[in-house]
């Protein structure tokens, strides 16, 4: 035990001494993540792809919907500026791949964000309150799960017409179900922990307990699942576009480009290879980042 003089010294020094910064679990995770070479490499590559997508119009003299009548379905050629070649309509493939990246990445990020917000809130509420509320909320999720996804998308398209925002809605509306289940499971194991009980005993409201104590502690698995959802969403969008349900011409996405390229695979391979390489690279990167994050956020699980 401290004696009186030490204690008064402590009391006097309160506020006077410089505060020591703690190392949060987030910071520990960040340090571990940046030690992971595959994850860092993936982040760099993804960063480059994103940057290219953003500054796409500045990189090429051609617009994404501009037809170059002199070069229809020509192979890659550095001299005329069509470095990835042109498609069947004489449009520059390089610019189209980058515009496709815009759509694909935007769909991936936005649909995931939608699923994240709905899924985390829904799952945390269901898991935290438990009992009947939990049963009703999760049965609702089960019902939505049982709806065939393609049927759902086609119905939306029929009713509202083809629209890029509809794809966000449709994908987000499907992806949040799994997110809600993950968060609910984590919350169930958290809500009996003593720090939640301490918050209860203090009189913190349920709403604040969920947002201040529950959600920050379930974020680890959620972030990992999120990095795996993004490629899944991009892939689903590509699949929808491949079927002709996705974005509308002349706007494009990687799925549309691959679908067009696949039709002419024998005559002009470049039309398939370039968008496919970009898509595959992006998916790999997200998966590596997901792996890295999982190891960083839960070092015991390795």
């Amino acid at each position, binding site marked *: 035990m401290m004696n009186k003089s030490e204690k008064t010294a*402590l009391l006097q020094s*309160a506020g006077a001494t410089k*505060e*020591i910064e*703690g*190392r949060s*679990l987030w910071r520990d995770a960040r340090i571990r993540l940046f030690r992971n070479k595959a994850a860092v490499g993936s982040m760099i590559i993804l960063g480059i792809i994103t940057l290219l997508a953003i500054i796409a119009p500045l990189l090429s003299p051609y617009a994404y919907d501009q037809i170059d009548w002199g070069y229809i379905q020509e192979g890659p050629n550095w001299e005329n500026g069509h470095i990835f070649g042109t498609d069947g309509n004489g449009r520059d493939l390089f610019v189209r791949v980058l515009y496709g990246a815009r759509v694909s990445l935007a769909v991936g990020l936005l649909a995931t964000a939608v699923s994240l917000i709905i899924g985390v809130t829904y799952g945390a509420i269901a898991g935290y309150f438990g009992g009947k509320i939990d049963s009703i909320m999760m049965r609702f999720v089960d019902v939505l799960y049982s709806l065939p996804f393609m049927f759902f998308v086609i119905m939306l398209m029929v009713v509202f017409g083809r629209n890029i925002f509809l794809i966000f809605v449709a994908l987000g509306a499907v992806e949040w179900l799994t997110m809600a289940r993950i968060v609910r499971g984590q919350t169930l194991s958290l809500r009996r922990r003593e720090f939640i009980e301490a918050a209860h*005993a203090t009189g913190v409201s349920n709403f604040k307990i969920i947002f201040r104590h529950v959600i920050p502690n379930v974020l680890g698995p959620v972030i990992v699942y999120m990095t795996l959802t993004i490629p899944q969403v991009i892939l689903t969008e590509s699949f929808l576009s491949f079927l002709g349900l996705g974005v509308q011409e002349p706007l494009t996405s990687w799925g549309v480009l691959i679908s067009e390229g696949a039709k002419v695979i024998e005559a002009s391979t470049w039309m398939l290879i370039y968008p496919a390489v970009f898509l595959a690279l992006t998916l790999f990167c997200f998966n590596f980042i997901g792996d890295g994050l999982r190891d960083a956020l839960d070092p015991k699980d390795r």
Partner: protein
Amino acid sequence: MTAMTAPDKRDNAPILSVRDLKVHFPIPGKGPFAKDRPLKAVDGVNFDLFPGETLGVVGESGCGKSTLGRAILQLIAPSGGQVAWLGKDIVGIPHRDMQPLRRDLQIIFQDPLASLNPRMTIGEIIAEPLVTHKPELGKDEIKTRVKRMMARVGLLPQMINRYPHEFSGGQCQRIGIARAMILEPKLIVCDEPVSALDVSIQAQIVNLLQELQREFDLSLIFISHDLSIVRHICHRIMVLYLGNVMELADRDSIYAAPRHPYTKALISAVPIPDPEIERNKERIVLTGDLPSPLSPPSGCVFRTRCPFAQEKCATDVPTIDRVSETQEVACHFHDSI
């Protein structure tokens, strides 16, 4: 060790009166048509707690100590009985009316690290009760109060931005105490606050609690299974067995002259740090295990393990008899054994 003088009860009304408190958990029966069976975790507990007093609650694992503590704070809804806080019954009152009372009722937990949110700095953790109950305070004022309380419980105030995993068990328990104390409550339920700590740290934490009690005129409900610590800190001691009170007496009477056979067995099991006395002392060894609280024995719940059990014990539930001014015991034969 400091000499403890029990606060004078006659001058004060009790701040907490617990009457016939019951906590029964429904356990789903087997088979589709079976009824739920009640698990009687706490079954009819009575006691008063006075300002500045420490009440020890002792008993084996699973006897309902922690459940009792949580039921008093309304963290578990009691199934019956009364908990009168400052004369007003708080069992089953609406959530909205309970919230303002919580600033006077706090709890300290057994596992110090698990009771702190790993994603928050200790400054945020200790400030949470302040932020909740005194939203009018400014950021600087909250920070000053948190630092003052940290210094008071023996933590360096410049550690305010650190995270719980950067502290030892004893320091974490000090953080827990600081969080409980920041609103200067009137009652703290200490749920085995030292059983997860080293012996040397235990003494520090217990002494800290005693200091704070004197300084702020705190009442403590001290749940423990360590009889030596209970003897050190508590003014009165309540012995629980299967959710029932066996004996309730002030510290000196219960250690000098335990009247209930269960209390006698518990106290005879406390080791004495002297090999001569330890070797020659008489130990009452209880046989068997704690019966299931789903099907407690008829009559006196302790009779299945009681060396003095007689026929009457199986049929009649013993009433709590006042054997002296400071001692109550629930046994049919407390005079003869």
